[in-house]
């Protein structure tokens, strides 16, 4: 270890894990050995992997220091558009760590796992109710896994009718993973452009929808934060040609209790428990991506399915047309418990209120920042609003510079350069858990940065200056990858 640990006040240094420790230390107390040794045959064993030996305090300091270089929702505002970084209630963590849940083996007989099965069954019902659909599976591990499940359901549906369709419509305002999920199921995505209002036009869909097209993957509200106003008619057109409407529900936080997808023509959709239902993202997962369907697609849902009969819960494999299994076991149960706990804490009225306030916060930011930043589509938005760097290009300031400068003001930057339909996009999603005071501060910070852009652009080009590291060389990282030490 060459560098000193204390760098500057509370900006602490920390070496890589294997640059610490001494051979022979341990941060683990091995259980008592109460049986004799039974040597394994020669040739089967090794000397053991080259892991560093550390004491408990070495490990504790290491990860405590690392954690301090990280920004989370608990640290401050994290307006990452399309990612819905709302506050994660602490009671959810407590519920998920109850020993009865955390210690449960997935292959226990149903009679010994009634508690978790009841929770899963009820959560399925709640999600179906919120989306206005008929049935749900909790098995997919993440949003993109839910999309894949949805595509497999569509594939299985057509197969059961002796059909094989080859295309699927994917608008330019859909989520980035949509085309890849479709392609994994052998569908070629047909791109469709949104109109000058930032939404899909009925005509654009009518033009491409045919009998060889499996359906449409629409994101509603879309990635511009706009409600697809023509969804009803678009669904009619797709249905008329025997197609299926898939809705990417990643943006469901905007419309809980306001619109039910099952009633506006959607046949299958996924939800992100780690977005809408307040389960934390853990630095990139685990997530959970339940899929809700209308009756016609129910026979194809993954198995096993959680069933209830006379208050007794069980797992059933008795669905011969099922697509099969998406994960080894039942899905990310720990995440489900947190979402369940959230829904039970909120109740119907507060869920609707959450959507209303999420939309209020986003519109408030849109109105207050629209002179400062160029607003891509000047119309009422849902839970997120999309700006661009058009007003700043004269000062040779790009979106990324403003994003990095925001860090110096103590905010996590919004999503940048997505959606692709807006050049230099800045997508801000405050969520409902941010107060007016915090949002006002964020707006002020952005205004100050825009002012700096004109006055002293170097401040932005050099940003961030107050983080653990300055701007990182991503090009070299990709050209000469170093993935392990």
């Amino acid at each position: 270890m060459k560098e000193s640990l204390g760098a500057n006040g509370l900006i602490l240094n920390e070496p890589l894990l294997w640059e610490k420790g001494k051979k022979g230390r341990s941060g683990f107390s091995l259980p008592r050995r109460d049986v004799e040794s039974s040597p394994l045959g020669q040739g089967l064993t090794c000397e053991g992997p080259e892991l560093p030996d550390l004491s408990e305090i070495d490990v504790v300091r290491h990860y405590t220091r690392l954690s301090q270089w990280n920004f989370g929702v608990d640290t401050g505002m994290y307006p990452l558009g399309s990612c819905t970084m709302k506050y994660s209630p602490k009671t959810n963590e407590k519920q998920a760590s109850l020993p009865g849940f955390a210690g449960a083996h997935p292959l226990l007989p149903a009679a010994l796992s009634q508690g978790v099965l009841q929770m899963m069954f009820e959560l399925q019902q709640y999600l179906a109710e919120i989306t206005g659909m008929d049935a749900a599976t909790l098995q997919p591990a993440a949003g993109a896994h839910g999309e894949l499940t949805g595509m497999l359901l569509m594939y299985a549906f057509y197969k059961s009718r002796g059909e094989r369709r080859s295309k699927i419509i994917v608008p330019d305002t859909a989520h980035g993973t949509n085309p890849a999920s479709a392609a994994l199921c052998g569908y070629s995505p047909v791109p469709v452009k949104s109109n000058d209002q930032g939404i899909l036009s009925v005509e654009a869909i009518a033009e491409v929808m045919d009998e060889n097209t499996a359906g449409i993957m629409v994101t509603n509200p879309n990635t511009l934060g706009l409600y697809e106003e023509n969804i009803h008619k678009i669904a009619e057109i797709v249905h008329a040609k025997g197609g299926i409407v898939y809705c990417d529900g990643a943006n469901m936080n905007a419309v809980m209790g306001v619109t039910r997808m099952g009633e506006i023509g959607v046949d299958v959709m996924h939800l992100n428990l780690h977005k809408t239902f307040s389960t934390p993202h853990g630095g990139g997962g685990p997530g959970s991506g339940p899929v809700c369907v209308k009756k016609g697609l129910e026979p194809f849902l993954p198995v096993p399915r959680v069933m209830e009969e006379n208050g007794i819960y069980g797992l059933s494999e008795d669905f011969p047309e099922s697509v099969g299994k998406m994960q080894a076991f039942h899905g990310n149960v720990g995440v489900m418990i947190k979402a369940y706990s959230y829904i039970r804490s909120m109740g119907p009225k507060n869920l609707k209120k959450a959507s209303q306030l999420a939309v209020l916060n986003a519109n408030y930011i849109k109105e207050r920042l629209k002179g400062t930043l160029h607003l891509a589509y000047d119309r009422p938005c849902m839970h997120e609003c999309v700006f661009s760097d058009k007003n700043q290009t004269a000062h040779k300031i790009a979106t990324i510079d403003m994003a990095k400068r925001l860090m110096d003001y103590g905010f996590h930057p919004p999503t940048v350069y997505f959606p692709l339909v807006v050049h230099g996009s800045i997508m801000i999603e405050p969520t409902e858990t941010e107060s007016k005071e915090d949002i006002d501060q964020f707006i002020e910070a952005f205004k100050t940065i825009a002012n700096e852009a004109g006055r002293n652009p170097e401040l932005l080009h050099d940003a961030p200056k107050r983080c653990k590291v300055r701007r990182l060389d991503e090009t070299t990282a990709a050209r000469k990858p170093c993935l392990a030490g």
Partner: protein
Amino acid sequence: MRYLPHTSEEIASMLEAVGVDDLDSLFSTVPEECRFSADLDLPEPLTEWDLNAHMQALANNMAVSPEYKVFMGAGSYEHFVPASVFYLLGRSEFVTSYTPYQPEMSQGTLQAIYEYQTLTARLLGMEIATASHYDGATALAESLLMAIRVTKRKRVAVSRLIHPLYRRVVHTYFEPTGYEVVELGYLENGVTDLTDLDNMEDFAAVAVQSPNFFGCIENFQAVGEKAHDRQALFIASFTEALSYGLLKSPGSQGADIACGEGQSMGIPQTFGGPALGMLASRKKYMRSLPGRLVGQTKDLDGKRGFVLTLATREQHIRREKATSNICTNNSLCALAAAMYMASVGGTGIRELARLNHDKAEYLKRELKNAGLAITFDDPTFNEFVVEFPAGFQAAYERLLEKKIVAGLHLAPYYPELANHYLLCVTETRSKEDMDSLVREVTS
């Protein structure tokens, strides 16, 4: 509602700034026919007090250790986790952050994942590892698809002794692709029968699990040689990552890809998920890897730092040409595994793995001495198959009432193995627990 900070005055002033009269008017772009006018039919909100009681009641309706003695593994293992791991993992800077899209503000997650990738590569004897996947089963499916991309062949050979539920996930992923899965049978001693490979042409990969589903240790070296003779990749699969604390690593025996489940390392069982899909490979396949990767780089001042890298393989940029649709990883689970590996250390993991092995050997020997048949002869790690007398199912139920779960009945997965049970022993089962199991099954 305590999660919603707005006062009514704030709402009023914000509505005014937006230029609408009330909250409903914010939704003017939602057409009338798309409005849901009723209230959602959901239970009314619970206070935190009532929620605690409700959740505790559900959790109490579960059979878990230490009250129950569970001798069941089969892909989910009960291991002791140091309090320090739970404590550190609960730090909200880790828990409440998102994918590290802005590296300057996410060095904690990024360095931790880089370290996880390194420790994983070392554990599996491979050069590089991904930032994690959903679980062992999806990691296997993605590995097989990767081998198909690398070799441009359309058929894979998969051992029947790979976890049966993993194989079902593979079939689900493969169903619409037109790729073919050929299953390899097993020999009397409980390991994969490789002879069918001799008559197979043009396969992209052979996947074999070790310790396999019966707990037996496979000869990875032989599998690798057979695969490489035919220019196919050798995929080493596993459900018990801890075993490589003692057993030779996949990489040291010629594996091109190693993939499996890392739940054993610091992750609670939680009815099967979240779990940790581990995936590692040789460096030459780096650009074909599915999922997220973290790389080391420098900042403007030349200081070491970490970023997400090689994103051009991914959905963000290539969209329909992406190598997989994976967007999220299981970052927090990867972090738990890294903390666990750091706590146990190189010396500790070997001793712990040895203890797991020795304990299972003790139970195996005691059952044998009591007259029960141990079905397969080959060496096992912490699981093994035992044949109970016909009609044992009734005794199994009786044992459940005594709070003993006597393994997993294999007949639903391997119909030829009626009355056979897969038993598992980890460091959490005492000699006393095992002695009482032997007494009960033989009484």
